[in-house]
């Protein structure tokens, strides 16, 4: 079945996008990412003197740009200016690669996005030729504005980053999908495989997650579950589910030819 995810003109077989943070070590990161089947993986950009051992391999040596589409993020940025600077550095670091993830946070406790700063950053980045996949709230008006600015994917949260609460407002996600033409990828708050399946059953184009896999007791096994969850949800969506009804009066077995009943 040819059902590829197309973002900014490029096709991907996997609709599961995975973050590379919070794993125990690089071996676990690599095993989980490979098991997930993800082709697009997010990375963060940080100062070079935060205790890296120069003799250790770096993240990009174990997850190279030749094998994965690396999506630099702006995690930890609270202003449009910082997000823009971070992505300019990321583009230079990745030899001109321009597909990026924009997120501008509003406060460190909830990690909720600051959509006003996000919009400002998106305008600058699109004007500078970046292909922006934008993390945002589930506000359908903001989502449409971000698409109009020229973002190549809209990534609304299911619930707060790292919360594992799953999809709290499927109605808003549906409103976003009705109004936006570019891919809608649920990002943040997925906790387990059924959450990912539900997102795909709603009609989302993909799911991005990090904590759900990294914070599972067995991350590699959860990565496998997530891969299947996303695939199952997508197939169920494409298959067209049966309607929900209060009464069916339509049993699955024939009503004719039932043996006579001893019931009076």
């Amino acid at each position, binding site marked *: 079945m040819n059902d590829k995810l197309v973002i900014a003109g490029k096709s991907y077989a996997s609709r599961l996008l995975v973050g590379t943070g919070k794993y125990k070590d690089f071996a676990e990161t690599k095993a989980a990412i490979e098991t997930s089947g993800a082709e697009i993986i997010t990375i963060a950009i940080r100062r070079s003197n935060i205790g890296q051992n120069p003799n250790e391999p770096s*993240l990009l040596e174990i997850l190279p740009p030749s094998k994965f589409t690396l999506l630099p993020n702006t995690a930890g940025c609270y202003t449009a200016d910082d997000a823009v600077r971070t992505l300019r550095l990321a583009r230079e670091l990745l030899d001109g690669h321009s597909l990026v993830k924009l997120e501008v946070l509003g406060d460190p406790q909830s990690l909720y996005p600051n959509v006003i700063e996000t919009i400002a950053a998106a305008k600058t980045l699109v004007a500078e030729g970046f292909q922006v996949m934008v993390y945002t709230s589930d506000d359908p008006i903001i989502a449409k504005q971000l698409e109009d600015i020229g973002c190549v994917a809209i990534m609304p949260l299911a619930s707060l980053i790292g919360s594992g609460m799953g999809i709290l407002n499927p109605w808003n996600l549906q409103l976003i999908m009705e109004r936006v033409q570019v891919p809608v990828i649920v990002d943040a708050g997925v906790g387990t495989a059924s959450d990912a399946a539900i997102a795909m059953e709603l009609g989302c184009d993909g799911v991005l997650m990090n904590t759900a896999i990294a914070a599972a007791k067995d991350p590699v096994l959860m990565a496998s579950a997530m891969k299947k969850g996303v695939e199952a949800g997508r197939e169920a969506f494409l298959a067209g589910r049966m309607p929900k009804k209060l009464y069916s009066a339509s049993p699955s077995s024939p009503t004719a030819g039932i043996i006579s009943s001893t019931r009076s």
Partner: protein
Amino acid sequence: MSTVITVSINGEARQLPSGVTVASLIDEMGLAGKRIALERNGEIVPRSTFAALRLSQNDKLEIVVAVGGG
């Protein structure tokens, strides 16, 4: 003319020889051959210019690498 300049690197003040190039600084920091990006006073410094660019007094540098993140 001073033989030493003070430059801020990733938020820390450092004394460097006057006329030091970006390339020799990167070398001295053990980052040669690593995938990095550098911003000087708010502007990206392309890797192709590292050997030619000399730092100045009070330059503010951010040197970054890719790390794991969501």
